[in-house]
Structures are given as structure tokens and as C-alpha cells.
């Protein structure tokens, strides 16, 4: 066997470019596999661990106010394993720099570990319910704490029930419902400077909101295997007298939905991406080995004549593929571990999970080794089968000339007769090697499709932002007030210098009922003449706000199976005063991409609430030169709960997108490498096979450039259609990908700009040209004397 090993070394040295090319593709496949699978595994593990240790709630019930004693009743409902009550409310923070922020005040009963949705201390210390010397102690989520440059012992001022309270910050903490902290689904991304979580003892929260012995949320964990619908209904019945505002399952919890969305996305690509690279590498190896065995037919015959067994020879050739894969895996494991650590850092930045996200996953590495060796063995053994049928005596006779046949193009006589001999040669060579052609076309189009897949997220986000910032919403600031006010009170704000348009709105949570089923939604009442925020149809055109009837959100329409013309019952869930009911006809469905909400006219909203001219927020358009001054003056107004600056929102998203650039560049690089290796291998194979022919062309007077052109002619009819095919394939994969990760807080459209198609095609051209160029270098070294010698 030693001698065969030495022979293998010679073969590898003789085809080093191809060997390395394939190993790189395997390495890319393996690093993607390790990177993505490790990230998925780690993220999923730390999610589960975190959820379990802190009793992450299965269901949430929001009420106006309920006595603590009600919890005993909820706990007694069969199927409830754990229930907690708490107070949670958003309150404004008065920052020293006059800027406005909101914290979600969340209370915790003691002892902490026994409740649903517990928290874990990150830094500092836990709050004390009754600090010596009075005052209120609280903890913050780390991101808000850091983004606002706070220190333990600092005091921040909040406004609760129209009173200012100083709160002493004693620590930072994390909880399973705060892994991805966004104010609501209308925000595209977290903004830790302006929104955070403030955790404090229940007694203090009850004191702040004047709710002694009461809470406004009930969180429940179910026993395994119970009929959740029945349990939920029983709890709803218990809570009904206390103003049941909203209830939703874990899957609708914002932080959980965001984390699940990411996990689903990872899971979707964790199998797909490595599979593309590994299967293309396997196909190329198969083609190369088949050719190698064909060209070494007589040598195989000699080996057999010398007494080598079939099995030995098959192992000898298969070892080539196995070594390619082993080499690729060795390299891929290194880069995969690096990639996994990059992903981990990225996720640690996005998600607030205290369990270690990073770490090398040895199981995944073991799988990757088995996977790559499996790919090598499969390609090797299946390609080496023809070794069995080689007969030692026959194999030593020279091979008859390669038999050729008519190509498909010859059926089109008008085209064929006009072709030069070199084009005819190219078409026949291609159709003689159909499997190789298939591998080339599939490989090149996959590489182009991957280029599109790498770039299109940018397009989709850009389109979403363009729709959101330039069309659907046109305001500079969105204000929300602590309490509803009369629209006429907006005068104070409109008098500020530089305020252009100012439009009041009323936004309220609602429950939409239709024939026994219901869904919670957000209703926005705006003036029909409003231009600062508008619902849109599926084609992006604006829907005029009707005086009567409602524009329903796509989300609610889909969940309840609503159609235009249906009449639904609305239930308001404002938490102030009794819930009101109204029958409304659906006049249109709102396809707004972001912050998809239902709309009515402001007058209609007031009628439903049996009020008049009330608003609880306003949209503003301001003179950009005055923006800073206006923002400061708004911050001084205590009636304003929050100020959302569109510019800041946009900057925030842009900075998040920037962190994607590294990943996008890596994917583009991987795609180009894949394409390059495919073109290079295919061209080198064809070159090696036709060395004699090409050399004979040189002897009869072809120049080396003309021979290179002949080789190009063989690549073009495969590469061009493959490049074109890659474009729709890319769109198809993008749709498949988004289809698998779509979740209903956002609607991500599959938008691919013409520029991306052009860039993908250009990238494709680049790797085709590079691959062909690298393979054509062999022409320069073609020795015409050596090859025209009278040897077989």
C-alpha cells in the first residue's frame, strides 16, 4: 500500500490547483456548518436554560387592576402550575441632558426565585424592598445602564402618576422576557438610550402607582400537556371583573418572538448553506475522479496486472476525495470556530442572554468531521466504480479516439451552419460531457444565487426603510402623552418656532371580535386629512382614512380571516374607564410594512370611546434648523411621555445594518470562491483532457491566444445561461428564506433591486473570468514538441 500512497501524493501534486480548490469549497461548507450550527445550538441552549431557570411565562394577562388575592384563584385553576402577579407600566424618565427616555417599570414580589418571569443579577446588587433611610431602589437592564453611562448609586428621575420620583440604581439584571428589548412592535430595532427596563420591588411599584395590594398583570406557567385554551378561558373568566385588557401567549411576546425569529432563520440556513457547498464539492470531486480513472486506465490495468486488488485501487482513488475533504475539514474547523465566535459576539450584542452564548461545540465539530469524510467517501467510492470493469489486458491497448456525437444545437440548422469550426467543437465537447455541464451550470447558478442571497437583505431593509420613512410615515417626531388631552391643547406645541405640521392622533389597544374568535390589535385614530402617517394598500398606494368604518391591519385580517366588507366588533382595552364596544365595517386592509396597525378616523375613535376631540399623541413635521431646540423644549413638557425622533430611529437602524456588512462581505467572498473553483475545475479538466488536441492546434499554426479563445468558447455557452439562471434562482431562495423566518410583527418583503441583480451578475462574470484565466495559464506551458511526439 505504501507505493499507492506515494502514487497518491504524485496525483495530488499534479493536480494541486484543483485539489486545493475543492478543499477550499469543503472548508467553506464546513465552516458555515460549524459557524451556523454552533450559533443556533448555543443560542437555543442559552435561551432554554435562561427560560427554565427563571420560569418564563406561557401566558400573559393584562388587567386594569386586580387584588393580590385573585392570584390564589388563578393558581387553583387546573392546569396552572405557577402564577405571579405584578405591576408593569411604561413611565417617562427625565434625563439630565434634557432628553426623553422611557422605562418599563416592572415589579417583583419576594422571594424572587419563586415567581414567573424571574430575573438574574448581572452586576451590583439586588434592590431592597424597604431601604434604610427610605427612597426607592431599582435595577436596570445592562444595555440601558451602559448606553446612558450610569453608575451604581446614581439616581434617575421618573414620572409616575404625574409625580416625579428619584430612583436609586443599585444593580443590573436580566430576565427571560427582556432578551430583546424593544418598546413595541412599531420599533424596528432596540434603542437602548431611550428605552429600558426598570426592575423594582412590588411594594414600591404599588406605592408609585397608588395601587396598594393590587397588580395589573398576571403571568402564568402551564402544567405540561394541558388544554391551554380551556385554562386560558377559565383565567379570563376569573379576571373579567377586573378589566381584562389583553392576553397573549408566549409566542406573541415581543422579545421571545424576535429571538425565535432569529433561531428559525439560523435553523433554515444551517442545513441549506453548508449543503450547497458540500454537494457542489462532492459533484466536482466525482467528475474529477471519473476523468482521472478514465485517463489512467492503462495504469490501473498495470496495477491490476501486478496483483493489486480492485478494493485497493478503489480505496487508492477514493482516498483522493477523502483527503480533499479531510484537508478542507481541517481548515474549515478552524474558520468555523472563528465564525461561531463571531456569531456569538453578534448575538451577545443583540440579545441579552446571561448564559454563555459562545464556546466551542465539540459535538458539532465531530459531526462536521463525519460529514466531510462522508462526503469524500461518497464522492470517492461512487466515482471509483469504473475501476471494477477495467480489464488489465485490454486497458494497455491505446484508447480509440473519444467518440463524439451531434450536439443539441445541431438540430437548429440555421444556427449550426453559421458556426465556425471552433464553436462547433465547443458545443460538441459540452454535450459529450453532459454531467460535467450539469455540475458547472448548477454550480455557477448556485454561486450567483448565493451572491443575491448575500445582498438582498440590504435591499429588503432599505426598501422597508424607504417605505417606512419616506412614504408611510412622514413625521419628524412622534409624541405620546401621559394622558389623553383635548386636541386644542396642542396649541402650546404648535406655537413653538419651527413647527410645521402638527397632527393629533389617538392610539389605543383593542380587541377585534368576529364570530366567537378575537385578536388583539392597535387602533390608531387620525384625521382623514393627515399626511404624516398613512396606511397603505398592498401595492404601496395610500388608503384614505374613512369617516366611518375601519382600515384593518394585515395581521388581524389574516389571523381572523377578515375580508373587506365584513363587520367586526371592537372592544377598547384602554385601561381607563370601562371597555367600550362598537360595530365597524372593514373598508380596507392595511399592508403598511412596519408597525402594522388598524386605522379609523380620529372622530370615529372618539365616538367609540364616547368622548370628543381627545388625542393621546401627536405627529410633527419641523424645520430641520429648529429641530434641536424644539426637541429640547418638548423634553421639558412633563405631559409628554415619549418623543420618538425619526432621525434617531433611522440612525439606529443604519448602525445595526453596519454590523451586518462583515457577514455580507464574507458571504460574497464565499460565493465568488465557489464560482471560481467550479469554473476553474471544469476548465482545467477540459484542458487536461484535450492537451494533445490543443497542442496539435498549436503545431498547425494556431496562436496560443486562439487556443485560449477556443477554451473560452467552451466555457461561455455554459457560464452565460448559468449566470442568468442564477438570478431568478437567487430570488427563489430569498423567498424561501423569508418564508421560513417570517414572523408577524413585521412583514419583510422580498425586494431585490436591479442593482443587486446587476452586481450578482457582475460578480458572476468576475469569477468566470478569473476561473477561466487561471485555467488558461496552462496553455502558455503547453509543450508542442512533447505533445506531438509519437507517443500515446
Amino acid at each position: 500500500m505504501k507505493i499507492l500512497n506515494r502514487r497518491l501524493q504524485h496525483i495530488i501534486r499534479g493536480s494541486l490547483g484543483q485539489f486545493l480548490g475543492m478543499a477550499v469549497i469543503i472548508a467553506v461548507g464546513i465552516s458555515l456548518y460549524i459557524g451556523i450550527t454552533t450559533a443556533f445550538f448555543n443560542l437555543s441552549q442559552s435561551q432554554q436554560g435562561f427560560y427554565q431557570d427563571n420560569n418564563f411565562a406561557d401566558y400573559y394577562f393584562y388587567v386594569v387592576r386586580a387584588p393580590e388575592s385573585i392570584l390564589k384563584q388563578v393558581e387553583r385553576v387546573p392546569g396552572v402550575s405557577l402564577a405571579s402577579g405584578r405591576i408593569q407600566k411604561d413611565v417617562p424618565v427625565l434625563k439630565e441632558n434634557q432628553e426623553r427616555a422611557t422605562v418599563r417599570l416592572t415589579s417583583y414580589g419576594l422571594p424572587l426565585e419563586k415567581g414567573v418571569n424571574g430575573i438574574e443579577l448581572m452586576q451590583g446588587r439586588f434592590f431592597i424592598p424597604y431601604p434604610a433611610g427610605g427612597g426607592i431602589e431599582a435595577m436596570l437592564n445592562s444595555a440601558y445602564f451602559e448606553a446612558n453611562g450610569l453608575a451604581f448609586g446614581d439616581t434617575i428621575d421618573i414620572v409616575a402618576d404625574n409625580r416625579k420620583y428619584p430612583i436609586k440604581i443599585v444593580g443590573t439584571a436580566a430576565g427571560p422576557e427582556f432578551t430583546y428589548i424593544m418598546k413595541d412592535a412599531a420599533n424596528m430595532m432596540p434603542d437602548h438610550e431611550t428605552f429600558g427596563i426598570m426592575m423594582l420591588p412590588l411594594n414600591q411599584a404599588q406605592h408609585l402607582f397608588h395601587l396598594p395590594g393590587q397588580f395589573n398583570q398576571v403571568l402564568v406557567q402551564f402544567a405540561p400537556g394541558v388544554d391551554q385554551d380551556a385554562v386560558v378561558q377559565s383565567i379570563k373568566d376569573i379576571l373579567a371583573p377586573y378589566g381584562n385588557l389583553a392576553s397573549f401567549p408566549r409566542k406573541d411576546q415581543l422579545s421571545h418572538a424576535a429571538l425565535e425569529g432569529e433561531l428559525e432563520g439560523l435553523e433554515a440556513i444551517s442545513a441549506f448553506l453548508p449543503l450547497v457547498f458540500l454537494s457542489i464539492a462532492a459533484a466536482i470531486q466525482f467528475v474529477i475522479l471519473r476523468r482521472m480513472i478514465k485517463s489512467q486506465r492503462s495504469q490501473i490495468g498495470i496495477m491490476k496486472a501486478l496483483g493489486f486488488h480492485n478494493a485497493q485501487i478503489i480505496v487508492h482513488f477514493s482516498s483522493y476525495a477523502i483527503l480533499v475533504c479531510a484537508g478542507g475539514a481541517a481548515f474549515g474547523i478552524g474558520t468555523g470556530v472563528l465564525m461561531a465566535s463571531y456569531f456569538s459576539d453578534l448575538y451577545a450584542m443583540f440579545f441579552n442572554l446571561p448564559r454563555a452564548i459562545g464556546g466551542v461545540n465539540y459535538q458539532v465539530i465531530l459531526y462536521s468531521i463525519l460529514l466531510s469524510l462522508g462526503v469524500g467517501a461518497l464522492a470517492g467510492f461512487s466515482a471509483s466504480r469504473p475501476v471494477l470493469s477495467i480489464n488489465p489486458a485490454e486497458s494497455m491497448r491505446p484508447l480509440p479516439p473519444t467518440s463524439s456525437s451531434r450536439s443539441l444545437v445541431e438540430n437548429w440548422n440555421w444556427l449550426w451552419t453559421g458556426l465556425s469550426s471552433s464553436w462547433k467543437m465547443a458545443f460538441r465537447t459540452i454535450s459529450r460531457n453532459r454531467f460535467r455541464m450539469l455540475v458547472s451550470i448548477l454550480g455557477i447558478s448556485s454561486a450567483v444565487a448565493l451572491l443575491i442571497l448575500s445582498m438582498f437583505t440590504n435591499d429588503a431593509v432599505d426598501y422597508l426603510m424607504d417605505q417606512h420613512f419616506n412614504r408611510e410615515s412622514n413625521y419628524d417626531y412622534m409624541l405620546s402623552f401621559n394622558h389623553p388631552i383635548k386636541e386644542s391643547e396642542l396649541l402650546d406645541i404648535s406655537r413653538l418656532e419651527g413647527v410645521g405640521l402638527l397632527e393629533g392622533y389617538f392610539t389605543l389597544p383593542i380587541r377585534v371580535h368576529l364570530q366567537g374568535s378575537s385578536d388583539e390589535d392597535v387602533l390608531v385614530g387620525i384625521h382623514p386629512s393627515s399626511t404624516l402617517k398613512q396606511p397603505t394598500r398592498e401595492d404601496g398606494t395610500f388608503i384614505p382614512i374613512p369617516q366611518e368604518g375601519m382600515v384593518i391591519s394585515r395581521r388581524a385580517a389574516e389571523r381572523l380571516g377578515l375580508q373587506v366588507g365584513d363587520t367586526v366588533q371592537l372592544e377598547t382595552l384602554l385601561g381607563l374607564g370601562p371597555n367600550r364596544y362598537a360595530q365597524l365595517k372593514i373598508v380596507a386592509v392595511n399592508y403598511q410594512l412596519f408597525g402594522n396597525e388598524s386605522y379609523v378616523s380620529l372622530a370615529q375613535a372618539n365616538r367609540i370611546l364616547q368622548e370628543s376631540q381627545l388625542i393621546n399623541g401627536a405627529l410633527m413635521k419641523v424645520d430641520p434648523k429648529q429641530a434641536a431646540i424644539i426637541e429640547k423644549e418638548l423634553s421639558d413638557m412633563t405631559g409628554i411621555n415619549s418623543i420618538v425622533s425619526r432621525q434617531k430611529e433611522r440612525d439606529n437602524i443604519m448602525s445595526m445594518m453596519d454590523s451586518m456588512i462583515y457577514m455580507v462581505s464574507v458571504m460574497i467572498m464565499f460565493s465568488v470562491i465557489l464560482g471560481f473553483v467550479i469554473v476553474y475545475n471544469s476548465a482545467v479538466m477540459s484542458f487536461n483532457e484535450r492537451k494533445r488536441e490543443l497542442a496539435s492546434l498549436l503545431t498547425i499554426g494556431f496562436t496560443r491566444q486562439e487556443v485560449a479563445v477556443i477554451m473560452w468558447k467552451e466555457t461561455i455557452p455554459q457560464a452565460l445561461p448559468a449566470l442568468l439562471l442564477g438570478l431568478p434562482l437567487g430570488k427563489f431562495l430569498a423567498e424561501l428564506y423569508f418564508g421560513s423566518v417570517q414572523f408577524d410583527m413585521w412583514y419583510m418583503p422580498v425586494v431585490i433591486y436591479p442593482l443587486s441583480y446587476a452586481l450578482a451578475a457582475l460578480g458572476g462574470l468576475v469569477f468566470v473570468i478569473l476561473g477561466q484565466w487561471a485555467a488558461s495559464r496552462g496553455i502558455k506551458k503547453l509543450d508542442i514538441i512533447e505533445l506531438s511526439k509519437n507517443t500515446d
Partner: protein
Amino acid sequence: MNKDLLMQLKRVTKTYLMGEVKVEALKESSLDIYQGEILVILGPSGSGKSTLLNLIGGMDKPSSGDIIFKDRSLSKASDRELTQFRRHEIGFVFQFYNLISDLTAGENVALAAGLVNNPLPTQGVLAQVGLEARQYHFPSQLSGGEQQRVSIARAMVKNPTLLLCDEPTGALDYHTGITILQLLKQTREAMGSTIIIVTHNTAIGAMADRLVRMRSGSIAEIIVNDSPLPPERIEW
């Protein structure tokens, strides 16, 4: 016989470096080649006959000495000039034909015809080698003799000044070999080309106008044959 001088090899030497060993494949050899003659270069393997043919055909440059073709020196020609020389002046016929397997007989000939400005008509050349009826066949569908005819047609279609044949009958049986030699002779008669045949088969020397015998990298002797035999009378 026309005695116009076509090419002159003056004290030509060719040295190859094989690893660390210098091999003198051709030693200070001089030869005049005349228009329209059939020159047979005979010698055992390793005698330098292929080296000589490669130098004549512009596939290689001499290490020293000079090669003059129609008043031009080929020894100092660039690769580009040598390619042009092969393209316009030389027709090659190989022992193993070296046809393009993906082109039919006719297309193989047409491919070469495309290289020069005034090629002979492809159909006519195919008729001349007796392959008109087989022109749509691929090399794999032709016998050895037929493939060698295509090879000759491919060389002829460029209407070259020099037709260089490297062991043209080496892979063929006796009868087929004789027909190929007849074809070469006819070609000379029809087109007036100079034909140089390199072979180790001494019998073929009988059809030559002049015979060059090679031994150990040198020209041992040049024999003028006043009465060349027609190929059909050659036996081996």
C-alpha cells in the same frame, strides 16, 4: 526536378537540458531543402530525426547555427513569427493523426482552412484524399488509414510550402501505409509541395528524391536517389 532552394540548415545544433544532463539531440548539421522534392529522413529512435523535423517545422529553435527559409532566418524568429511560419508555410502529418475528436472529418479540414487567407477548397481536398463520402464522420468512426487521410487533407488544405510527415505510416498496416505514401506522392505531383517524411522504416527511403540518414544526432549521409520507386512497389 525543380532545384530551387527552399530552406537551408547551417551547422545547426540543438541541446536539451534533461535534468542536470545536457543532451545534444542534434550536432552541427547542415542540410539544403529544395522546392518540390520528397525528402526522407531515416534513422533509429534517438538519432535526432524528430529534432531535425521540429526545427524545420518551426516548432523549436536551434541552440546554435542558422535556419534560413526563403531568405529569412528562423533561428532568431520570435514565437509569434514561428507561429505565423507554421500557419502559412507548414503542413503537419503525425503518426497518431491528432485529429480533433469533436469535429467531423470535413470540419477538421475546415478548421485548418480557416487559418490561412487563400486555402484550397475543403471539398476538393477531401475528394483528393478520397474521403468525400466520409466527411460527416467523426474520427472515432473512421479507420486509422482514413484518419491519416483526414490528417493529410488538413495539412494540404492550407496549401503549405512544406508538408512534414512524422512516421505517417507508423500506426498503420502495410497496405494502408502504402496508400498513404501514394497519397503523399500524388500531393507532391498535384501541388508541387516539398514533402519531408521522417521514419525509421528504411523501405520508405526508396520513394525519396533524396535520403538523409541520421545517426547519433548527426547527419550520417545524404543520398540522392535518381530513380525513386513508386510507393506501390515498396515492400516491408
